[in-house]
Each structure stands twice: as C-alpha cells, then as structure tokens.
C-alpha cells in the first residue's frame, strides 16, 4: 500500500516537473514573440504610406481617364486563378496558419487554381495537396525583403499578361490589433477601377501618357501591396503566437496548481495510512 502511494506521489512530482519545463518554454516563446511583434509592427507602420499613396494615385488615374485600355484592366472570363498565399514559417502560432489556408481554400472552391506560396507552412501545405505551384523559392516569409516582393510582383505580372492566370488574388492575414488578426483575400488583378463620373475629365498631365504611366506603375503597386501584406502577415504571426503562448503558459500554471493539489492529497493519504498502520500495530 505504502509503495503504491509513494509511486503515485513520485509520478505526480515528475508530471509537475515536466509541465513546469513546458511552461518555461512557452513563457520564453511568448517573450520572444512580443519583442519580434514590436519590430514587425513598426515595419507595418513604415510600409503603409507608400502603398496607400500608390493605390490612391492608381485609383485616380483609372477613375479619371477611360480613354485608354490597359491589359491590367481587362476583365477576362476566369478559367484559372493565381493565389499568392502568405503563411508562417513555423507552427505553434494558434490558428494563424490553419486560418489562412482554410480561407484560401474556401475562396478557391470549385475553381481551377495555382498557388504562389510564401512561407514554409504554405509551401508544405499546398505541395501536399498537389496544387500546382508557381515556385517554391519563397519558403521563408520572415526573411523576405522589398526586392523579393518586387520579384514576386514581376513574376505574377508576367503570368497574368501571358494569360496563364486570369485573375490574381492575394491571401494574407491582416493585423487589426494585438489580439485580432483576420485572414483576408484581396483581388489584385485585373485592377478594379471605379466607374468614372460622366463628363468629368481630369486636368492631370501624364508624361508620356496615362496608359504608359499606368502600365509602369501597376507592377510597382503590386510589389507595394505584396510587401505591405507580408509585413502585416509577419506581425500577425507574432501576435497570434504571443496570444497562443500566453494561453499555454496560463494553462500550464493551472495544471501545476491542480497537480499540486493531487500531490498534497496523495501525501496526506500516505501519512494517514502510515499512522493508521502504526496505531494498529501498537494496539495488537
């Protein structure tokens, strides 16, 4: 009897130890994610004005001048879509990776599509599913720079102009706040221009002409959007990881409390049993 109680006490003690070391790891991961998050958030804020101003200008050109037609504006019957999917490089970030992959699949349901995955998790997931990939080159979302996003934009534009893809969409995770991140699908090409107000013409001087300027700016715009989305996604990943690891640390704490209670109870039971046995032995 004593042996059994002692062994269960030992088992509980071991379990507490192991939960404690897990808690240490989750705590450390949370701290790392917090500090990375701060940097990622700064990057998001830096990249926003560039992309917003570009978008505004393109919007104005497209809204004011309709007397040109650019291949980037042409809406074709959609046969094949190209999705640029930005996910993380690592797991243990709550629902971050699963959410964006699920969002992509819901959006692509019933469509023929190919994917340009960014981030190791996205590359792995789509390769496993057998979806045709444009390239596997970008398997490290955290390390991509501005020039990488320009390369991606160029690649995508080429595919679009060559007619290999009729529509380009970007799937990324929007960083709404520290606690909220939303998986989003954003149509990129063809450029969704607003209907111009009839009778109004812009007094803007385009050099050499509006079509050339528009066609030259579109790849820049795409690169800007992709870079912006990348920054947002990286920040979201850190945010999601921080929240997940915070929850894990709290759970580990609760588990340790619970196990301590069991341990004390087992100890108490063992002591009581020993006393009972001694008393019984003395009485006989």
């Amino acid at each position: 009897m004593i042996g059994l109680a002692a062994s269960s006490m030992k088992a509980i003690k071991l379990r507490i130890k192991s939960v404690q070391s897990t808690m240490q790891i989750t705590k450390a991961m949370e701290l790392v994610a917090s500090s990375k998050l701060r940097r990622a958030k700064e990057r998001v804020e830096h990249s926003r004005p560039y992309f917003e101003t570009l978008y505004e200008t393109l919007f104005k050109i497209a809204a004011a001048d309709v007397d040109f037609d650019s291949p980037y504006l042409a809406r074709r019957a959609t046969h094949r879509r190209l999705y640029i999917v930005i996910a993380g490089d690592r797991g243990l970030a709550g629902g971050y990776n699963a959410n964006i992959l699920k969002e992509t699949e819901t959006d692509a349901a019933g469509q023929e599509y190919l994917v340009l995955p960014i981030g190791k998790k996205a590359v792995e997931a789509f390769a496993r599913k057998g979806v045709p990939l444009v390239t596997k080159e970008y398997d490290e979302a955290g390390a991509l720079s501005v020039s990488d996003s320009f390369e991606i934009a160029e690649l995508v534009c080429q595919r679009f102009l060559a007619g290999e893809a009729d529509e380009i969409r970007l799937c990324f995770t929007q960083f709404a706040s520290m606690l909220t991140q939303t998986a989003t699908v954003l149509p990129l090409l063809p450029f969704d221009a607003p209907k111009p107000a009839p009778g109004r013409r812009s007094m803007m001087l385009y050099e050499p002409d509006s079509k050339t300027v528009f066609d030259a700016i579109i790849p820049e715009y795409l690169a800007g959007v992709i870079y912006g989305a990348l920054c947002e996604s990286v920040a979201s990943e850190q945010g999601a990881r921080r929240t997940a690891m915070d929850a894990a640390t709290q759970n580990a704490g609760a588990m340790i409390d619970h196990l301590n209670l069991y341990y004390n109870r087992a100890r108490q039971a063992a002591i009581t049993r020993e006393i009972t046995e001694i008393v019984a032995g003395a009485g006989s």
Partner: protein
Amino acid sequence: MAVFPLKIVTPDGLIFEGPVQSVSCRSIGGQVELMARHIDYCTALGMGEAHITTADGAVRRAACMGGMLSMIGGQCRLLATTFEWAEEIDRARVEQSLARAETLLAQNDLDAEQRERAQARRRRALVRRSVAERWGA
C-alpha cells in the same frame, strides 16, 4: 524662391518631408524637374540621380529607382522603390552587387528572365556607384 511641400516615401518608410524649391529625378521619359506651382502632374520613374533643392537653397542628391512622381494640388509626392541619399550609399555593398551581377552575366546558361534580372541589377549598381562617386561623402 517659392517652395512647395514634398514627401518622399519608400516601402521602408518616410525618407523626407518638408518644403523644397525644386525636385528633379529620372522618369521613364528622361530627367524631369518640378518647381512650385506646377500643374497636376504624374509620371513613372526610371533609374537615375535625383536631387532636391531645399527651402534654404541647399542641394541634396540621391540615387532613386522606380516608382512614381506626382504633383496633385500643389502637393508633391515621390514614391520610390529605393531612394538613397548620396552620402548614405554603402560603396562596398554596391561593388559587391555589381560583381555579383557581372559574374551572373558572364555565365552563358541564363534564360531570358534571369539575364534581364541580372542586367537590371547591374544597372542599379552602376547608378548607385556613379551617384556615390560624384556626390558621396
């Protein structure tokens, strides 16, 4: 001289904001220079040297690549892919990237796309080098 507000923005953040007398850079059509009270204007940028004359008449020079230049309602915006002040260009890095582009171009097995990319890299490096040599610290 009359000044106008200029904002220079790249994906890495805001580079410059303030009143200037003029801004000049290389567009896809050639070198252009805007001064105050220009009409609404928009062009895409090529690769080349840019310089601004600040309100006190000082000239600052930079290597500027890609993007667009617009003047809307007297507000000028220069959105560049990269924009580096001449004194901040890292010459060692320029030489490195130039050498890398040259070795790439020396290979014969490049496809058209890779070749184009390497040529663009070389052109960028050359622009940055010439700006750094002429105006750099």
